[in-house]
């Protein structure tokens, strides 16, 4: 029997094979990107750690109860959407001097745009946000408040970044992601240093 030359491989079933693979991948994979609010937990303090004394005026108290009602500074009943503005006013107040570094005495905040109210926070580096929640608070509410606090810090950093570098903090962060240079890192660290996130979460109300 004469063998035919260049007999072609039958590719008719190629499509079927590819479809089979395609369906396999469609079933076993998901498309969701994982994103969320990033938080760093405080390290566990040693038992014999002395208590740190903080002035009441440097603490911004947010209390949320099991009915998802929010109380600010123990006196003001607010909505979630108000937290961002109130927190920004509090952090950016700059009514006193900052933490002393080594022997150098603390300096007043020269980049704050706040009201300089002596009854509110002294300096962004001293301003603590305390979020006291109830065990029965819903997680959605908790995340919303965390989100508002994050938004307050981000907006303050954005404003300062625009003033110092002519670009917003978000833009600098995305630049850094594309092209990690030392100068960008210095900028980011500086901004984070100017407005450090100090969030305290006391034990929940039982």
């Amino acid at each position, binding site marked *: 029997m004469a063998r035919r030359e260049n007999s072609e491989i039958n590719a008719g079933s190629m499509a079927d094979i590819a479809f089979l693979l395609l369906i396999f991948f469609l079933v076993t994979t998901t498309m969701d990107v994982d*994103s969320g609010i990033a938080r760093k937990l405080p390290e566990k303090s040693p038992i014999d750690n002395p208590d740190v004394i903080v002035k009441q005026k440097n603490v911004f108290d947010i209390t949320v109860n099991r009915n998802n009602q929010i109380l600010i500074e123990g006196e003001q009943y607010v909505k979630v959407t108000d937290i961002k503005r109130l927190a920004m006013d509090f952090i950016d107040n700059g009514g006193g001097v900052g933490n002393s570094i080594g022997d150098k005495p603390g300096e007043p905040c020269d980049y704050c745009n706040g009201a300089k109210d002596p009854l509110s926070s002294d300096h962004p580096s001293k301003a603590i946000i305390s979020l006291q929640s109830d065990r029965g608070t819903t997680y959605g509410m908790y995340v919303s408040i965390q989100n508002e606090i994050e938004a307050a810090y981000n907006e303050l950093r954005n404003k300062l970044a625009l003033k110092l570098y002519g670009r917003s903090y978000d833009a600098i962060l995305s630049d850094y992601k594309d092209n990690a240079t030392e100068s960008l890192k210095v900028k980011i660290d500086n901004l984070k240093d100017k407005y450090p996130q100090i969030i305290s979460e006391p034990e929940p109300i039982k």
Partner: protein
Amino acid sequence: MSKFKKKKKGLPAISTASLPDIVFMLLFFFMVSTTMRETDLLIKKPALPTASEVKKLEQKSLVSTIYVGKSKDARISGDKIQVNDKIIDVKDVPSFIFSERALRKEEEVKYMTTSIKADKEANVGTILDIKEQLRDINALKISFSTTKGNDLKGNY
């Protein structure tokens, strides 16, 4: 005459020669843009809260996920915690993190993140318990998994 006679022909069959190419293209698209599904949920799929200030989780391989939500059985109340393919107690969270750490290289451990995927109806008490456990074993990087959006009304 027959020279000019029009040949009568039916519709020519659509060529399927490029079909494999098209399907392969789709296949590659899905292979690149999706990730493997790791766990089957034993609890009710958590309805994640919405947040506007979200960060994308980098390096999926260093993320360990904890699910919190209601049981599928409506008669069982309370929040259930699921890791990998089993429902666990809060006290077992550290051993889960240790087993996750054992799978990674030692120098990668400090970059590991714990992603908490919790239902927006879950109790904060459960979440804070998990956080306390994570703090005990120095797994300090966490992420509250959310969907991105500007409308936070649905959260509460």
